[in-house]
């Protein structure tokens, strides 16, 4: 049995905790607390880590770690991404400037993104059509990155599994690493 570690990151409210909870076979470990950030209407926010796991059809196990979204917790980003085989960056398209928020993670995880498979999941596209998926792809291109960008609703287990499958497909195709 192979074990994979995947990191979920992205802006506050993009659904990292929800995504992990949607697919985890165990009660997810969450470290959410009361949110006092006036710029965000969320009631609670992750300040430590999220953790969940699930088993693939072939018996391999995926361990999922979620980071806090806010950059004041960037000291945890490096710790949590250590030994990961892939990364999911979630974006919330209802935010005032989702592409600027995406840039925070592209820059914060620049070292990891140079070697790890990554998939971008964009949420709330149905209600907030702009920026489009093409705009995300253009933003990635400005960072010399070519990554899959998917329209997702992370409350749906199938959408989260699609993100993970996208990472694993990149690994199998050996698009990264040696």
């Amino acid at each position: 049995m192979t074990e994979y570690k995947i990191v979920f990151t992205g802006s506050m409210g993009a659904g990292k905790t929800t995504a992990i909870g949607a697919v985890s076979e165990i009660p997810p470990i969450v470290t959410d607390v009361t949110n006092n950030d006036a710029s965000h209407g969320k009631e609670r926010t992750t300040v430590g880590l999220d953790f969940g796991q699930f088993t693939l059809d072939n018996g391999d196990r995926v361990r999922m770690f979620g980071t806090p979204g806010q950059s004041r917790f960037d000291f945890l980003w490096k710790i949590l991404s250590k030994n990961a085989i892939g990364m999911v960056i979630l974006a919330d398209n209802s935010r005032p400037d989702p592409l600027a928020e995406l840039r925070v993670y592209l820059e914060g995880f620049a070292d990891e993104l140079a070697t790890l498979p990554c998939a971008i999941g964009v949420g709330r596209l149905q209600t907030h059509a702009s920026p489009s998926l093409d705009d995300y792809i253009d933003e990635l291109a400005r960072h010399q990155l070519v990554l899959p960008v998917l329209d997702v609703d992370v409350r749906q287990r199938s959408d989260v599994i699609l993100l993970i499958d996208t990472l694993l497909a990149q690994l199998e195709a050996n698009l990264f690493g040696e």
Partner: protein
Amino acid sequence: MSATMPLAPGATSIAQREAQDLLDQVEGVNTVVVATVDGFDVASALRTGEAARVAAMASSISAISAVVSQEARLGRNKSVTIDTEAGFAVVHSVYREDAELVIIAIAHGGALLGQVNYRVAQFARTLASA
């Protein structure tokens, strides 16, 4: 980004005064920060460092210790001590009706752990009832 301070103004003043007293009165302590549970500094007294960064770290430590307490069914978490080669840090939870807070005190190796623990716990009780 800005924090909506959940604390009554009187409690913030007490937090600031007590943080400064702890820094001034306990040998070896070089940083005292009171933070919200989501990592915003509410009051601080520091000889070095940056209150905002220390506050974020304190809230992460506290949240992770809360999960450990919960998973192990040990009740509500109270404090965490990080013992290092050159000193230690004590992170203490404060449960108020209007807000949950975290106090972190960082000291170098010359400080007495028992003394710092005692003073931080006393600070937490004062702040909880303020």
